[in-house]
């Protein structure tokens, strides 16, 4: 391995953590600011079992993603936030199925799980 790679690899986990945080932040805020556009993706069983409207579920989902992204970005209990977000996104992937969106989200969910597996990096606060 080159010397510069040795020096730079310490940034690898934090780059992954911040980039995944950005993804969840974007989608979380999108759901919060325009929940009606996302109601089509809410499974019917979630609406019927929770007795909440699809809009409410979208807002709650967006809030979860925003909070998780903030923990990820700040490096506070990031591994815990990564586990929750990763499993959450993996569940969404299963509902999307084998489509372009599903495959993309599958990769993202595993990348988020990787943050959990890595644990605390050098730039994490807690």
């Amino acid at each position, binding site marked *: 391995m080159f010397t510069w790679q040795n020096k730079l690899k310490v940034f690898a986990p*934090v780059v992954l*953590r*911040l980039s995944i*945080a*950005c993804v969840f*932040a*974007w*989608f*979380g*805020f*999108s759901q919060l*600011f*325009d929940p*009606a*556009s996302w*109601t*089509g*993706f*809410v*499974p*019917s069983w979630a*609406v019927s079992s929770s007795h909440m*409207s*699809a*809009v409410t579920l979208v807002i709650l989902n967006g809030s979860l993603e*925003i909070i998780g*992204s*903030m923990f*990820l*970005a*700040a*490096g*506070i209990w990031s591994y815990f936030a990564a586990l929750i977000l990763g499993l959450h996104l993996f569940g969404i992937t299963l*509902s*999307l*199925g084998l*489509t*372009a*969106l599903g495959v993309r989200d599958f990769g993202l969910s595993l990348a988020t799980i990787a943050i959990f597996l890595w644990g605390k990096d*050098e*730039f*994490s*606060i807690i």
Partner: protein
Amino acid sequence: MNKKIITGFLGLVLVAVFGIIAYRQSQPSGSSQTPTVSPNGNNAQVDNGNTPPSAPVGATRTKGYEGDDDYAPSQTPTGATAPTGSNTNPSGSSASSYTLSQIAGHATASSCWSAINGGVYDLTNWIVKHPGGQQAILSICGKDGSAAFNNQHYGSQKIANLLASFKIGTLSAN
């Protein structure tokens, strides 16, 4: 410890930046809603005597999709009123039938119609919201997008339900 705090702070700034970007994208742009009114001057529509589905469709379809009970009632009058006066079926059998030539007149981002699996859909407001990017929708504006749609979303009931909320009529063979 300093580098951790700085990194954490920068991370939160990044989250805030993406939040602002998402907020700006969620705001109705002039091209997504207003043009749904302005195409009144669309020659294709005027020539055919069509009542443009513009404002009512654009205004209501952003408020939820089929399957969302909170917004279902708002969709009903859209489907019923928009095509009124737009009957181009010579037989007069349906008030919401469109031919491919009529659909071809709505091939822009300001007015995007597409025929998918026998139905006609107004996808104007969906262009900027499509998770797979705008180009995927723009590429089927004004034409039969069945192949592109089925290649990407075939078998997905969720996507089919979402698409149904944009339906404005059926494809006429004439």
